[in-house]
């Protein structure tokens, strides 16, 4: 940019025109540096609560919560983590969370894939109507369906059972819609060629469509898993005993400890829940961001 004025002619006019451009370039550079500083400061504000959380969780009870906070605990201790289990069965809760999230995600992926394939590749009577009904259901908030479902689960004796949480999550209308949109963007030539070769729908779906739909599938997997893993509303209604609770509901059980002695232990428990997510995020950051961006834009 700054060179353009000189190389274009070297005449007086060119110089005069170029001069303000040079200054604007410099100003822009200063602007970007200021902007960078502002962004870094803002980023620090965003992560300060998390840094405080993690450092406090490895601080001894006697030294924790001093003001000004000690940002570097000396010496760091893991004792608080050892105490979590005396308050809540955190290992069991993590296992419950994993079971619920894996089953819900796998179930929703399977049902969504099959339905999305039918909606994008098979013309069948009632298909369009059905699809419209499903789309309309996107507007139904869970708060409306949760009350009858609570009554249903109570009748079936499934209250305080993990199935009450993962079973209803095995159908995901958004997932169907999202995958159908993606399938529709895959050229039909491929599956028509396979059909001529005698391949059935299942083979076309699993051998041709799914490999091509990997970006959409992984985005949806992250989206579904994250949603079930972090869900509080649903499990807080259906799960009642500590042994059945998922991590978010279990964490809130620690509320009673607020202000009392073991606040550091609560911090350790929150950290134990947040840290694995942070590590996964730092490794798969791109996938996380792309998942949210794509599922959001197409919703």
């Amino acid at each position: 940019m700054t060179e353009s004025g000189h190389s274009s002619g070297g005449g007086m006019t060119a110089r005069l025109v170029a001069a303000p451009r040079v200054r604007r370039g410099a100003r822009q550079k200063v602007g970007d540096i200021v902007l960078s500083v502002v962004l870094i400061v803002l980023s620090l504000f965003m992560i300060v609560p998390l840094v405080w959380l993690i450092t406090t969780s490895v601080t001894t009870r006697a030294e924790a919560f001093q003001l000004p906070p000690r940002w570097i605990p000396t010496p760091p201790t893991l004792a608080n983590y050892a105490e979590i289990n005396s308050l809540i069965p955190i290992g069991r809760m993590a296992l419950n969370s994993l079971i619920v999230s894996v089953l819900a995600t796998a179930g929703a992926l399977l049902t969504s894939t099959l339905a999305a394939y039918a909606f994008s590749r098979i013309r069948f009577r009632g298909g369009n109507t059905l699809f419209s009904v499903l789309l309309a259901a996107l507007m139904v908030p869970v708060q409306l369906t949760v009350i009858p479902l609570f009554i249903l689960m109570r009748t079936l004796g499934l209250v305080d059972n993990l199935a009450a949480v993962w079973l209803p999550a095995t159908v995901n209308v958004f997932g169907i819609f999202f995958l159908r949109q993606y399938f529709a963007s895959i050229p039909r030539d491929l599956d028509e060629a396979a059909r001529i070769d005698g391949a059935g729908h299942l083979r076309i779906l699993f051998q041709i469509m799914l490999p091509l739909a990997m970006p959409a599938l992984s985005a949806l997997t992250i989206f579904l898993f994250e949603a079930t893993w972090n869900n509080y509303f649903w499990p807080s209604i259906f799960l009642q005993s500590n042994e059945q609770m998922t991590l978010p509901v279990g964490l809130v059980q620690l509320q009673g400890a607020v202000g009392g002695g073991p606040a550091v232990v609560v911090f350790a428990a929150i950290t134990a829940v947040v840290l694995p997510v942070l590590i996964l995020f730092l490794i798969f950051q791109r996938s996380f961001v792309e998942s949210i961006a794509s599922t959001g834009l197409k919703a």
Partner: protein
Amino acid sequence: MSSAPVAVSTVRRRGIEGRSNLAGWFFVSPAVLLFIVFIAGPFVAAMGLSLFSWDLLTPARFVGMENFTRLFGDATVWLSLRNTFVFAFASVVTHIVIGLALAVAVNRPLHKVVQYVTRSAIFFPFLISWAAVSLLWKYVLDPDFGIASYYLGRIGITPPNWLIDPQWALPALIGIDWWHTIGYTFVILLAGLQTVPGIYHEAAKIDGANAWQRFWHVTLPIMAPTLVFAMIITFIGAFQIFEPMRIITDGGPSDSTRSIVLYLYQQAFESFQVGYASTIALVVFAIVMIVTLLQLRLSRRWMGHD
């Protein structure tokens, strides 16, 4: 004679159609069955429940529109709706304005490290569950040992007692929600921003438009559909806010943070008034539906299709 081949092909086509109908319904059947049991059925049941008075113990009693008349006279419903609307509007404004500013800033050719750090720091809190976020912030805002009050005090600001003061509890929750979910808005807006062709900016630059003019006349119009989408999705999400109200304040102090979904929850699962709770849920549904349809209309007008 000439009609015979036609008849054959019709029969064959019917056969193919029949098979295709069968295949179609076979593929959608798992989703449809689950949909009926877990979404459509409960949806219809909720409408029915709103006509009953039922505490889950004694037999349900048909009351007709009584729940609806009760709803209009229930001051707590109106207060909760007011809180929820305030929360949702504040949420939309802070998310969109700051989110857009951040997206525009990060979209500039800054140093890679700055971009990476900013993107990660803004986005990560979105991946933490509301449960963890709520507990953490309860401590951060604690007047005695929280870091927020301490550092505000250090720079000469006497902070209010956030979660105890009825005037400040809702704004505090709006702030916590912002911290938690701005990453989502930011990513959506950044993705939208990256679809703005660079050539438009170059053209505007050559025409002598400054950065502000380019933002106002190039970026914003192209971003309009994404912005409307982000606004609507933020509004709908915020309108259904529940977790921080339940975990941090439980609706207090003096009802200042009771959201409509929290009230619904309390009616259903604490007072066991499932009929009345369903009626409140129908109000939430109606509002969500109106806003969604509004978005569909707007986006249809913008894109001219779908």
